[in-house]
């Protein structure tokens, strides 16, 4: 019970500090989350503002809430307070869901409008994108949906082409420059995808200001701008960061969550689910994404809240209807065609291709990011953005598949060839449309299709190269859409190949007679979808959540097996070729203190080998009743540890508890200011009873400073012979920050998370100094 209050003190005091420290670990996850009914409501935060005014300090310290709640049943007002306390978690995730949905709608509408700005403006109503502008215009020609109402692009001739080329480049440069400079000026933390950092935060570290208001605003605006600039990036990953910012900001409305970092992480998990939910219109996929990829500690309670949050967010976005297609994503497609058993072979093949593409991408991107980190290139962030944008725009415009918005490209590739699809990829088949309701007949591909395939192949190479250079530049940029596009292109090409195989040799045993009737038995769009899942799975190493996201995108349960086969194959290939997914690789590159729960620790070292202090060093401890205020202050000045063990006496070293540096600092400062008669000679007492030490007689005239309230009397301890495997497991599962090492009940040393991470790195033959601390 004590640790509850102590946790609150910690999180409360975070707010008092200014922005100097950036990254640091926090209190244990478990011990707070496990005792929901005891935590929160600021029962103990009164201490920060000069003692617990209303309540008995001891009750406060021992977790006054249960008693309060028990009394609440008698008093109606307190009953309401209690009810508010109970449902505040749900209200909080409700608000997060609503806000996430609204923000996602704003981003979708804004980005689609601004993307089309590169091609022209709607003269009557500038706020429409191209499709909206031509909403009720019968004259829409089919090449890229231009209509006479939209300016630009519809004229022919080399002059017009050059002019629109130029305007395309200029708009792209303008958007990218704005995005990069806004990020640089107002909120540098808004750059990148944010998922590695969210993972790190959810694993128990705090990156100050990473989930703040300015980060939110700049991330939203910068995301709209950078997506519109035509760079090879997506808005789906940053959506997770945006949702987490909203979760963080809104949790301050509920003291139970705002004041407790451990509980706030539950809200952040739910927010991450909502982010994916709005990004793909896939609520269940979002929950699973949060569980599989982002969250570190995911109890059932969080699962339900995430489910609710994702549901609300998807509902809100769906009712905003940003794309006018009754769905929350642009590339929603609906399939209802069966697949034949033989097709599993090309699907697994696509999985292997996807794994290879993903590995190439991860290796190249990490190499480039490392180069950027350690070379002069890193000193020119805005210039780099501009150069990348310029190159992307110049290279992308001539190829219609790279010129168009990446989401539209994915939609085009996922789609079946029907009457309404007029791209050369579909329209140059030698087929007659006699009835849209009957099955599409098989047809030989015309030269236009082969040309389109070549263009797609070029687009694949181009997108791969550009995404390697784009992911990591200093604008908000996500990875989902480019990797989906890469996979969709590869899949579509394979799909067209298989389709033509089925057309030319319908009778071979492979197709088991299903292709001989004249119907089109192969759907290239399905291959595009499987390929997309494969590459995304290879890049992020997701499996379950990815399959669920993809089948929620298509609304077809029928394709779960192909998607599963491809995702699994791609994960295996990816794991064989390169160890980590892109997010873990970026965590390692940045050296975030993240203890991966997926790895196994296989070495035989003992706790005694890892603990601090090493031989010949002394452990700085505080005795429970024989140190004066001056002694403690001197200790705080001399050492920089985050916390100190409290022992009975220096000779015996029997462990009493653990006290955090921050609490100690605050308590001393408060006591000096507020409590009468505290001088440098006063004794500091951590024990409950009267002072019994030798110094007690000399300083008996002075009132002692009682600090037993900030003492954690139940620190996690291990013995010195505990294998490190167990210790690492404890750190992971309990989210510990430090553990004390004892021998025969006497304190020997401390193992902090830093020591564990260093030890793990050392054992893996990596540089232990690359871990980022403070």
């Amino acid at each position, binding site marked *: 019970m004590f640790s509850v209050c102590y946790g609150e003190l910690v999180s409360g005091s975070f707010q008092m500090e200014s922005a100097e420290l950036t990254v640091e670990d926090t209190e244990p996850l478990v011990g707070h989350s496990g005792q929901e009914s005891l935590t929160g409501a600021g029962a103990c935060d009164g201490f920060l503002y000069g003692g617990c005014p209303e309540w008995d300090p001891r009750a406060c310290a021992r977790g006054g809430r249960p008693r309060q709640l028990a009394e609440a049943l008698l008093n109606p007002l307190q009953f309401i307070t209690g009810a508010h306390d109970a449902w505040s978690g749900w209200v909080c995730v409700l608000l997060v869901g609503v806000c996430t949905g609204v923000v996602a709608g704003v981003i979708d509408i804004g980005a689609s409008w601004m993307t089309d700005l590169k091609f022209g403006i709607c003269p009557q109503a500038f706020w429409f994108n191209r499709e909206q502008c031509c909403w009720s215009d019968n004259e829409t020609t089919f090449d890229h949906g231009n209509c006479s109402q939209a300016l630009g692009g519809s004229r022919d001739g080399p002059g017009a082409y050059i002019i629109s080329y130029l305007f395309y480049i200029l708009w792209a440069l303008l958007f990218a420059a704005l995005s990069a400079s806004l990020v*640089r000026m107002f909120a540098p933390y808004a750059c990148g995808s944010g998922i590695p950092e969210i993972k790190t935060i959810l694993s128990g570290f705090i990156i100050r200001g990473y989930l703040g208001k300015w980060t939110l605003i700049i991330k939203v605006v910068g995301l709209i701008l950078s997506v519109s600039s035509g760079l090879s990036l997506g808005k789906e990953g940053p959506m997770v960061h945006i949702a987490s910012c909203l979760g963080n900001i809104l949790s301050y409305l509920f003291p139970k969550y705002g004041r407790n970092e451990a509980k706030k992480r539950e809200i952040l998990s739910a927010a991450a689910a909502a982010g994916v939910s709005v990004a793909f219109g896939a609520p269940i996929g979002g929950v699973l994404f949060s569980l599989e990829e982002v969250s570190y500690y995911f109890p059932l309670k969080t699962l339900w809240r995430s489910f609710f949050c994702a549901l609300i967010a998807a509902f809100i976005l769906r009712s905003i209807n940003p794309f006018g297609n009754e769905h929350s994503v642009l590339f929603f497609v609906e399939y209802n065609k069966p697949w034949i058993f033989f097709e599993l072979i090309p699907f697994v093949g696509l999985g292997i291709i996807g794994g290879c593409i993903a590995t190439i991408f991860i290796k190249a991107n990490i190499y480039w990011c490392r180069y950027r980190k350690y070379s002069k290139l890193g000193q020119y962030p805005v210039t780099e953005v501009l150069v990348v944008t310029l190159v992307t725009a110049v290279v992308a415009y001539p190829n219609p598949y790279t010129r168009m918005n990446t989401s539209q490209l994915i939609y085009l590739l996922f789609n079946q060839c029907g009457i309404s699809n007029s791209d050369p990829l579909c329209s140059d088949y030698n087929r007659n449309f006699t009835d849209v309701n009957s099955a599409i007949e098989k047809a030989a591909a015309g030269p236009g299709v082969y040309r389109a395939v070549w263009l797609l192949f070029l687009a694949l190479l181009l997108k791969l190269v550009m995404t390697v250079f784009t992911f990591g530049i200093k604008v908000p940029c996500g990875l989902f859409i480019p990797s989906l596009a890469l996979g969709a292109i590869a899949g579509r090409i394979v799909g067209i190949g298989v389709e033509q195989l089925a057309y030319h040799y319908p009778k071979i045993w492979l197709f088991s007679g299903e292709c001989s009737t004249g119907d089109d038995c192969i759907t290239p769009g399905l291959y595009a979808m499987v390929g997309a899942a494969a590459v995304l799975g290879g890049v992020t190493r997701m499996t379950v959540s990815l399959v669920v996201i993809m089948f929620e995108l298509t609304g077809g349960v029928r394709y779960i097996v192909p998607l599963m086969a491809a995702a699994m194959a791609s994960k295996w290939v990816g794991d064989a070729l390169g160890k980590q997914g892109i997010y873990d690789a970026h965590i390692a590159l940045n050296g975030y203190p993240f203890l991966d729960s997926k790895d196994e620790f296989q070495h035989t070292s003992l706790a005694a080998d890892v603990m601090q202090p090493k031989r010949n060093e002394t452990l700085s401890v505080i005795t429970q009743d024989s140190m004066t205020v001056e002694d403690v202050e001197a200790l705080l000045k001399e050492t920089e540890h985050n916390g100190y063990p409290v022992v009975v006496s220096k000779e015996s070293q029997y462990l009493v508890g653990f006290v955090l540096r921050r609490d100690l600092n605050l308590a001393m400062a408060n006591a000096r200011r507020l409590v009468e008669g505290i001088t440098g000679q006063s004794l500091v007492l951590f024990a409950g009873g009267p002072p019994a030490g030798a110094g007690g007689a000399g300083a008996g005239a002075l009132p002692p400073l009682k600090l037993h309230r900030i003492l954690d009397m139940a620190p996690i301890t291990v013995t010195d012979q505990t294998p490190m495997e167990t210790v690492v497991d404890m750190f992971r599962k309990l989210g510990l920050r430090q553990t004390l090492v004892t021998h025969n009940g006497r304190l020997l040393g401390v193992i902090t998370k830093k020591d564990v991470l260093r030890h793990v790195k050392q054992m893996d033959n990596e540089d232990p100094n690359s871990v980022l601390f403070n």
Partner: protein
Amino acid sequence: MRWEYFIVAFAAMYFVCVSGDQSYEDKRCKCVCPSPAAVLNNTTGSDRKLYIANVQPNKCDCDGVILPQVGADVKVRALEFCPRCECKYENRNTTIIKVVVIIVIWVIMLLVVYMGFLICLDPLINKRAKASYQEHTNEEDEVGGGPSQQMGARGNVLNRVTHQQDKWKRQVREQRRNIYDRHTMLN
């Protein structure tokens, strides 16, 4: 500063109200057909024709949308022509689109203006305050936290705003140092 906001809000309202002539409907039924020549001359071509009309969702089919718009020669062969067409009912909300786009434009403009202000004018204004300010940043954060907060509470609103702004600037500077100079994060 205060009345600039009023102008901005007023202008935004003005924009939303005045430019609201409804020449764009919120609903449509969109049908895609091959060009009628495919039926009349039995040729195959890849050109398509669009038929768009604003009808009830249940009328969104060949009879409701396409036939009123085609010539008599196609109407006769409706049984042949209609199955080749694909109709889709779509709706949108123009008001939301308009409001969102205008808000986005305003936010971007405000941010750009504020950025310009911070780059160009702020250094000139704060030139004198800079010396003491730099000293402040070098202080230990834990020591600096308490007293400055008290000062803010004692001062008037303007002081508090300035204090908040300073705090924010310090944060941003720290973030910039982490990302752009030391490259310890978000590489």
